[in-house]
């Protein structure tokens, strides 16, 4: 890069992931001068998803994008599988609503999607520099004035920190809360290529239908978390998300070993049979929600996407990408409004939080602020999967002799103590 210290951008965006690219696309569409700095070889090179994006909340923010977006398959079949050591129980949900356009969610590969979104932002006029790591912020009298990257000083009216869950940029601006491991999970996954016809037959998929499967219980050795499987066009995304704190607690199991046992479960082994693993990736997920969130803006700086802590686990859905795209969009709107008043101080940028408050982003985080504490309940991942499995075994079992009556069979599992504890769990769940 040439020395551009004389040049002043409207906005410098740190990180070309979904939040950064959404902001760049929106700002460039409004004619603003935007520079995106991406440390990978290309946008997407450092980015990982479990595998599914929900489009409804963000469809109208980017009306022109969706028809050509490189998404994998629309999810038409949902399954959740409760796994005990020797058995599992699966609930499957199919519905015509999942198979009607516009589809609510798609499986997605970020390598493909982010590269494409970067191209769309460039077409609108955003300037994108890859292989460029931001090392520091330029801060004068408390006002962020730009970034240092590769020894270059790059200046802008506003910096948007979209550098992911660790966000060293937000940290340097003093906007982050101290990092607590209880607020983070780690996800790791394999991409398993599989013949397209085999995949469609195996998962009963018609045309571009896709399947999503979640697994909880023994898959994480009873630790807070779960497994996931999504069907892409000709591959599977198979992985595990587990709380970082939970991983350090008993029983001591190394993260990669969880993945190995997961793949060996008969429920999984038959689904990936004949497939070939082509990539192994990992990513941290900020799950602390509203309570763990730092400040979203400061003098000359905004924080969006994972960097702001915008991802959420409410059990059956784990979401982050919609919040990243939406917060990037609203950050751009905030910059546009700040420019009209030529006020890039904290007060000039405060409109960002107002926009987020009025949108699904912060409304969701307020509604679900208790969900992490509620779900981080060991019995949900150990005792209940085992209990459910045992009840199913006894219900279905036909012994050599006479079969016991059903009511006493089930009742033996449901002591007063058990029922009382279920009521307590129910009460916890009411907070979600």
């Amino acid at each position, binding site marked *: 890069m040439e020395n551009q210290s004389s040049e002043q951008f409207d906005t410098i965006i740190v990180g070309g992931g979904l939040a950064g690219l959404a902001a760049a696309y929106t700002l460039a569409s409004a004619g603003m001068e935007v520079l995106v700095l991406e*440390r*990978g*070889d*290309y946008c*997407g*090179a*450092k*980015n*990982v*998803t479990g595998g599914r994006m929900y489009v409804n909340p963000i469809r109208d923010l980017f009306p022109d994008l969706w028809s050509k977006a490189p998404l994998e398959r629309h999810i038409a079949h949902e399954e959740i599988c409760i796994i005990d050591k020797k058995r599992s129980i699966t609930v499957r949900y199919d519905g015509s609503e999942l198979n009607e356009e516009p589809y609510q969610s798609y499986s997605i*590969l*970020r*390598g*493909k999607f*982010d590269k494409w979104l970067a191209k769309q932002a460039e077409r609108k006029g955003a300037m994108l520099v*890859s*292989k*460029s*790591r931001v090392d520091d912020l330029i801060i004068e009298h408390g006002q962020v004035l730009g970034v240092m*990257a*590769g020894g270059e000083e790059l200046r802008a009216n506003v910096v948007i920190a979209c550098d992911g*869950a*660790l966000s*060293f940029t937000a940290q340097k601006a003093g906007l982050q809360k101290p*990092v607590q*491991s209880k607020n*983070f999970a*780690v996800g*790791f996954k*394999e*991409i398993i290529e599989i013949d397209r016809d085999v995949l469609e037959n195996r998962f009963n998929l018609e045309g571009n239908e896709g399947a999503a499967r979640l697994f909880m219980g023994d898959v994480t050795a009873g630790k807070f978390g779960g497994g996931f499987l999504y069907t892409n066009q000709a*591959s599977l995304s198979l992985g595990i998300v587990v709380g*970082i704190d939970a*991983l*350090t607690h008993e029983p*001591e*199991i*190394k*993260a*990669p070993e969880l*993945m*190995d046992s997961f*793949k*060996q479960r008969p429920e999984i*082994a038959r689904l*990936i*049979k004949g497939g070939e*693993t*082509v*990539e*192994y*990736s*990992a*990513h*941290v997920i900020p799950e602390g929600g509203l309570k763990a969130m730092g400040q979203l803006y400061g003098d000359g700086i905004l924080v969006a996407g994972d960097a702001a802590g915008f991802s959420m686990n409410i059990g059956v859905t784990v979401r982050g990408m919609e919040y990243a795209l939406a917060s990037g969009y609203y950050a751009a709107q905030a910059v546009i409004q700040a420019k009209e008043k030529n006020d890039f101080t904290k007060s000039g940028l405060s409109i960002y939080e107002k926009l987020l408050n009025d949108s699904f982003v912060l409304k969701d985080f307020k509604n679900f602020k208790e969900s992490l504490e509620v779900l981080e309940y060991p019995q949900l991942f150990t005792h209940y999967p085992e209990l459910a499995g045992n009840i199913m075994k006894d219900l279905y079992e036909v012994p050599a002799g006479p079969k016991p009556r059903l009511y006493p069979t089930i009742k033996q599992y449901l002591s007063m103590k058990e029922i009382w504890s279920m009521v307590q769990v129910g009460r916890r769940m009411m907070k979600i």
Partner: protein
Amino acid sequence: MSEVMGLKAKLGLDVFKEDSEFHIKIKEGQARDIRLKKAILVCPAGLYSEKENGEVVISVDGCLECGTCLIACGAEVLEWHYPSGGSGVQFRFG
């Protein structure tokens, strides 16, 4: 039951570009710190191990840059940066 693919082989599928320096280092004098033991459990790439003398060591090749070790162990025991621009893991699928 399918064969278990070794972690080394699995990481060998990823595209890595070498950096001029190690982007994660155990801070001097901290190798025996108890917090580092967590890294052995949490690292999805299994890069941390414990030597017989109780010191934890990291082999940074194969790092997926997730940051789990930093979150679990803390910045007091780990010096942690992203690799310089254009190096480190380059996900093709992500």
